[in-house]
Structure formats: structure tokens, C-alpha cells
């Protein structure tokens, strides 16, 4: 959304006073349009003009930051709708939800299962980055699920979450609120202790404020303000520098809630997509992103939060489907009710794939990967650093259960044949890799090369005279019989 020189010129005083160092306002404007001059160079711009210019040069979708004392996450900041246009910017983040209606045992089980998911995949740490702490009773009190979900039911607040001994000594409604708040804050403490970034879903300002204190110096997401409570929630968000979730029952309500919140001067926002219908939630998530990126609609230029757990209604398989859908289409943060390895493995794999550079293949780090308990006396199998090749070859080697040192050489992320054709995989490149990286660490002197580049065998035998060079199978499926025949 860059402005042209002429558009900038129109907003200057056109006095050619030279205070900016340029001979004319026009010259300054041209430089500014090319990014060669800062707007602050002209001291005579009116505030209004400055705001206009800054607004126009801002990216179409805000990037917002949230954190725990241990970690920091960036959300949003996307510039395109499809990954083939340009690399997506900030990966979708995943949360697991705990709420005030769960038993302690259930909360502990969920947190434990989520914490167990922590592994590395192609150089990236995969773990559940966020925990949503949800004040479940609030939904009933305020009816934020709006339009339809509670249709026909009257909004009866849950009055007796914890029947205290002194229940008769004060107003039961007030007591219920304060006991629910205690319950909420105890969950926040538990969640904060995990070191993950929190999402505080509550409409109780007092609870929100205390929860923010618990999280400090971390900056959790405060979720969610709506058309009624935005002022007080924005104040808390501002005070603690939190990302504020803004919501409404439909796009109109969401828009006006964002506009009202922005008017308070706070723009560190995330749009919390309501969960009353999957069809609506999907439509809103897509339309919000599309309006921001395609139509330059600034009001919708914020990341989104989607509650896959609520949308799936408790079915873990449906939840996986919903999670994959919103990972594909425009969820910035997605909350799950069940997060275990079975969910995480494909989900993180999907995300990692979608957020790669469309121009560059995924690669694994060159080096020696011992498989099936291989040691320095185990055979070496060499292949390229293209991630897909690595996965397929390592998978087959694991299937064979034969101990092998999988040696990954730098081939610019190309597949075996492509790398061979482009010269990235040659007798020279293999020989120097083996001499410099492999030979000092491995005693075994047997080296298997991909069957597709058998033609390199003769040259390799000359270049690596101490090594026995073997030619493996053409296709990955042949690796198992090849290794077993050795």
C-alpha cells in the first residue's frame, strides 16, 4: 500500500523551505516514496498529514507480540493469501484450553499431555506454545456466544461452582463470582507455571487484571473484549501491554468492537472468532483475512484466534479436522481441547510445510545421523539434504532395523537426480564431505551411495581409496532389501 511521490507531495506544505535538505517539497516527496527519506525529515508536516502518511505505509495486517517470561511469539503480519505468492510470515500458534468447569485432575491431565509434546523436526522445536485459560461461566453470564448458540435457553449463570462453608453469610451471586474468580486465578497460576504463553479468556475485569499480574513480566493475550466491555478491557490491556482479543457475534459486531477499541488508542489486537457455528467461523476467518490483504481494510488487519475445540464440540477427530482447516486458512492462533502426539505430529508437520519459502526446498542440516543405534563401526549411507529425501530414506533405514550412519551432504536442497544434474551432488562433493566430515568420526569404511548415481562409483573409488563404495537401490523401497543383504 505504498504511496506515490505525488500523493505524498499533496500532503506537504509545498513551501520549498529546504529544511529537509531537499531543494523542493516535490524532491523530498519523491525520495520519501522510494524509501530514501524518512517522513520525519520534514518538520512542517501537519499531524494529520503525518498520520495519513504513516497509516498508508503501514503493512496491511498488524504484527502483534505476546510472551511468557520464557518465550515470545509474533502473530499476524501476513502479506499474501496463498503460499505460492510469497512465504507466509508468522506460523500459526497452537494452544490447549483449560477451563473453570474442569476438575483439577482433568486440568492436570490436559496440561501434562500438552507438555509432553516437545520434539524437534527439521531444526524446529515443536511444542504447544500457548495455553488458553477459559472462564467457562462467563459464556453463560454474558452470552458472548451470541446469535443462535444459546437460542431458546435462558442465560442462567452458574451460581454455585464452589459451595463455600460461608455460603449463607453473603449474597450468593457475589460469592459465586468471587469463588469463580478464585478458581480462575488458580488455573492461571497453574498454566503460568508451565512457561507457555497464556491466553486469558475472561470477561471479568478484576480477574483479568489479577491474571495479568500473575503472568508478568510475560504479556499474555487478554480475550476478549466486545462491544460492551471494550473500554475497561482496553484499559487493562494498555496497562499491562497485552494483546487484546476483540470479538462479536458477527462481522458487523466485530468491526464496530474493533473500531471502538481503536478509538481508545489501543491497537495491539487479535480478532477472536466466535464459535457458535463452524460455517460462520470459517467464513469470518477467511473474510477478515481477505478484506485486510486484498481490499486494504485496516479494521480487519489483525491476526485471528480460533477455538477449534469449541467448534468441534468435543470430538477429537473432528477437532483435528477443524485444526487442519484453520491452519490452512488463516487462523493465527488455534485452541484445542485435546493435544497429544497423535494430534501434534501431523498438525506441526502441516504447519511446517505451509510456512516454508515457496521458492526454496526444505532442507535438513548436513551431517551424520546415526539410525537404529548405529555407532562408529556401522555402515555409512550417503544422500542429499532435501528434506523429503531425508525423510523417505531415514524411514526406510529405520524399517530395515540395520544400524546405519545416514550421511547428509549439502546438495542445495535438491533431490538426488536434480542435484546430480546440477553438479551439486558429484564425486567431488561426496569425497570431500566424507574426508572432512565423516572419516574423522566414523571407523567403518563402507559407504553406500544412491543407486541413481551409480555412475559416480568409479570416480569415488579413486578419490576414496580406503573406502569400499557400494551402490544402494534406485528407489527408497529397495533400501530395506539392500541393507539386509549386506
Amino acid at each position, binding site marked *: 500500500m505504498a504511496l506515490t511521490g505525488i500523493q505524498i507531495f499533496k500532503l506537504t506544505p509545498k513551501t520549498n523551505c529546504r529544511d529537509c535538505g531537499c531543494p523542493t517539497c516535490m524532491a523530498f516527496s519523491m525520495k520519501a516514496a522510494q524509501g530514501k527519506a524518512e517522513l520525519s525529515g520534514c518538520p512542517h508536516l501537519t499531524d494529520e498529514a503525518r498520520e495519513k502518511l504513516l497509516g498508508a505505509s503501514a503493512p496491511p495486517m498488524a504484527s502483534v507480540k505476546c510472551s511468557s517470561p520464557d518465550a515470545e511469539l509474533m502473530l499476524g503480519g501476513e502479506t499474501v493469501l496463498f503460499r505460492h505468492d510469497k512465504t507466509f510470515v508468522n506460523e500459526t500458534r497452537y494452544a490447549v484450553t483449560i477451563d473453570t468447569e474442569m476438575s483439577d485432575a482433568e486440568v492436570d491431565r490436559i496440561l501434562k499431555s500438552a507438555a509432553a509434546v516437545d520434539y524437534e523436526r527439521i531444526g524446529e522445536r515443536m511444542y504447544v506454545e500457548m495455553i488458553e485459560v477459559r472462564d467457562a461461566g462467563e459464556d453463560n453470564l454474558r452470552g458472548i456466544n451470541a446469535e443462535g448458540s444459546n437460542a431458546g435457553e435462558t442465560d442462567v449463570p452458574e451460581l454455585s461452582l464452589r459451595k463455600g462453608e460461608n455460603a449463607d453469610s453473603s449474597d450468593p451471586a457475589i460469592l459465586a463470582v468471587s469463588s469463580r474468580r478464585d478458581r480462575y486465578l488458580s488455573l492461571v497460576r497453574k498454566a503460568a507455571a508451565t512457561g507457555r504463553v497464556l491466553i486469558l479468556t475472561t470477561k471479568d475485569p478484576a480477574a483479568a487484571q489479577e491474571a495479568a499480574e500473575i503472568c508478568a513480566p510475560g504479556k499474555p493475550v487478554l480475550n476478549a473484549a466486545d462491544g460492551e466491555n471494550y473500554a475497561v478491557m482496553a484499559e487493562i490491556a494498555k496497562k499491562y501491554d497485552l494483546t487484546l482479543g476483540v470479538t462479536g457475534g458477527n462481522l458487523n459486531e466485530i468491526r464496530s468492537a474493533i473500531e471502538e477499541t481503536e478509538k481508545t488508542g489501543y491497537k495491539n489486537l487479535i480478532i477472536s472468532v466466535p464459535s457458535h457455528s463452524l460455517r460462520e467461523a470459517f467464513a469470518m476467518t477467511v473474510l477478515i483475512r481477505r478484506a485486510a490483504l486484498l481490499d486494504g481494510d485496516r479494521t480487519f488487519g489483525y491476526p485471528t484466534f480460533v477455538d477449534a475445540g469449541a467448534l468441534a464440540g468435543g470430538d477429537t*477427530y*473432528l477437532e483435528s479436522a477443524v485444526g487442519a482447516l484453520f491452519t490452512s486458512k488463516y487462523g493465527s492462533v488455534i485452541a484445542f481441547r485435546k493435544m*497429544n502426539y497423535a494430534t501434534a505430529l*501431523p498438525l506441526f508437520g*502441516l504447519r511446517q510445510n505451509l510456512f516454508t519459502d515457496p521458492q526454496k526446498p526444505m532442507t535438513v542440516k548436513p551431517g551424520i545421523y546415526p539410525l537404529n543405534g548405529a555407532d562408529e563401526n556401522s555402515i555409512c549411507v550417503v544422500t542429499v539434504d532435501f*528434506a523429503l529425501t531425508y525423510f523417505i530414506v531415514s524411514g526406510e533405514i529405520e524399517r530395515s532395523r540395520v544400524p546405519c550412519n545416514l550421511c547428509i551432504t549439502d546438495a542445495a536442497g535438491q533431490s538426488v537426480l536434480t542435484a546430480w544434474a546440477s553438479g551439486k551432488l558429484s564425486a567431488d562433493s561426496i569425497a570431500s564431505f566424507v574426508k572432512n566430515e565423516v572419516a574423522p568420526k566414523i571407523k567403518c569404511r563402507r559407504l553406500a551411495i544412491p543407486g541413481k548415481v551409480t555412475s559416480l562409483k568409479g570416480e569415488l573409488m579413486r578419490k576414496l581409496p580406503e573406502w569400499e563404495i557400494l551402490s544402494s537401490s534406485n528407489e527408497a523401497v529397495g533400501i530395506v532389501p539392500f541393507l539386509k543383504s549386506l
Partner: protein
Amino acid sequence: MPELKKQVFRGAIREVTFGPEGHRLSFGGEATYPFYSFDKVEPHRRIVGLEVLDTDPEFLEKCAGYDALEYVDFICLHLAGGDPNNENKSTEELLKLVENAAGRIKNKPIAVAGCDNTEKDAELLPACACALTGYGILLLSAKEENLEAFKKSAPEVILGAESSVDINLAKQLDVLAVQAGIPEDHIVINAGNAACGYGFEYLVSTMERIRAAALSQDDKMLQMPVVTLIGPDSWGTKEAQAGEEDMPGWGDRLERGRKMEIMSAVGVLAAGSDAVIVRDPVSAAAIFALETKLGADG
């Protein structure tokens, strides 16, 4: 407040129909990106097939059982055992199996997928088309190398044109199929398969580019519906294969495989696939539930 803009395209995906009389199944026909019914209503739900492998000891029982599942749109007989590197079953043996299976499938259309050996498929699949005359099957796995062999089956069946994961190769194969005299509405695109985490980004971007070309550039040779076979790649991943004793932290193997299959299927559906074929009924049920909720106000 201004209404949000709708995205309207020049092009639309062709509608394709297969299956026997009384159980005809149509899919495709949409003029929007996947599930964007807020732009324009999609005429058909994206369909879900269930894969049965000929190598499965319960092959026939599963055919009969799957036939009764309401969340399954069609059944795909996957003749992987015909591969000389697999069980190398003869064409005659497989034909008999296919005929028996068809006898058990009374309520749903049938798709047949080959063994991924180009030569064997060239013999096997047209023979299946012949054997199942009247069933109006969807015949997957015609490739550039063996397209010739599929020509004579064309008027009777819907042909899946399978290319590598590449928009140009997909288009080239469609052009060749049309030049070979196969009617355009008897062709579906099979632009390759992948599982989440394993080169899945190529598949997604290829499908999204195919869909973009079909809709915004009105490219007639890319307006065929897309069909994707999910099962083999997903269930072949380490995530689905590794035993619980090998990866103690990973938990239930079946749950891992199902979720890999579900997410891979949803990933391609969101990128433009009009039909997915999965291997586990639980996966099919989850995808059906997702689509039902996306279609209705639920």
C-alpha cells in the same frame, strides 16, 4: 457499514457424475475457492471415498460393511496387490476379486485404483472397466505413459488423470486425454498425493495454483475436479507406522494414523481437492462431519 466484497470468477469447475443407475454421484461444479460458500453456494459437497485394499484379508467383508456407512460417498477398490513388487497378483485374480466386491457394493458408486506399476495398470484397469460395465466407475491412475490403454474405456468410465505434483504436468495430461478423445467431463485430475510434513506444501501449492488458473483465468484444461488418494501416503508415514514399543511417548498408533489421514485430507480439501479417498472409516466420518458443519449452520 460496507458489505464485504464477494469474489466472483469467470471460470468454474466442471461437474462430473459417476456411479450406477440409481446411485449416481455428482461432484465439482463450484465457482469458488474451497468451502467459500459465502462467495457463491457450492452445488455439491466435496465427496469422501473409503479405500479397500485387495491385499486386506477382510477385503470383501469391508466392501459390504462400508456400503452401509452413510458418511461414505463411494468405495475405492485399490488393487495394490497387482504390483510385481507387491504380491504380483494376476489380472485374472484381481478381476475376480473386483467382480465379487462389486456384488457386495449395492448402494454406492465404485472407484478403482491401480497398483502404481504403469505397465500392469495399463492391462489391469481397462479390464476392470470392462468387467464392471454398467457400474459407471471412476477409474484412477491413468498416467501419461499408459493413457493409450485407457482410451477404449473412456465413454463408460470417469478417468482419473494422474500426474506428478506439478501444475504444468497436470494440465499437459488433461490436454493429452482430451486429444485422445476422452470427453472433458469424463476426466478428473489426480495431481499427486502427500502426507502432512512430507512435501505436503508442493501438493497444496500445486492444487491452489490449479484452482486459481481454473477460476480466475478460466483455463478449461484445469477445470476438471480434483481427486486425491490420501490413504497410502498417510498410513505409510513413520507417524502412522511406528509401533507403540518403538515410540512409547507417541501413544495409540491407530489414533496417530487416523489423524495423519484426516489432516492430510483436510489440507488438500482446503487447497481445492473435490474428492478425497481415505482408508479408515473414522477418518471418513470426521471429514464428513466437518463438511456437514461447514455446509450447514451447525
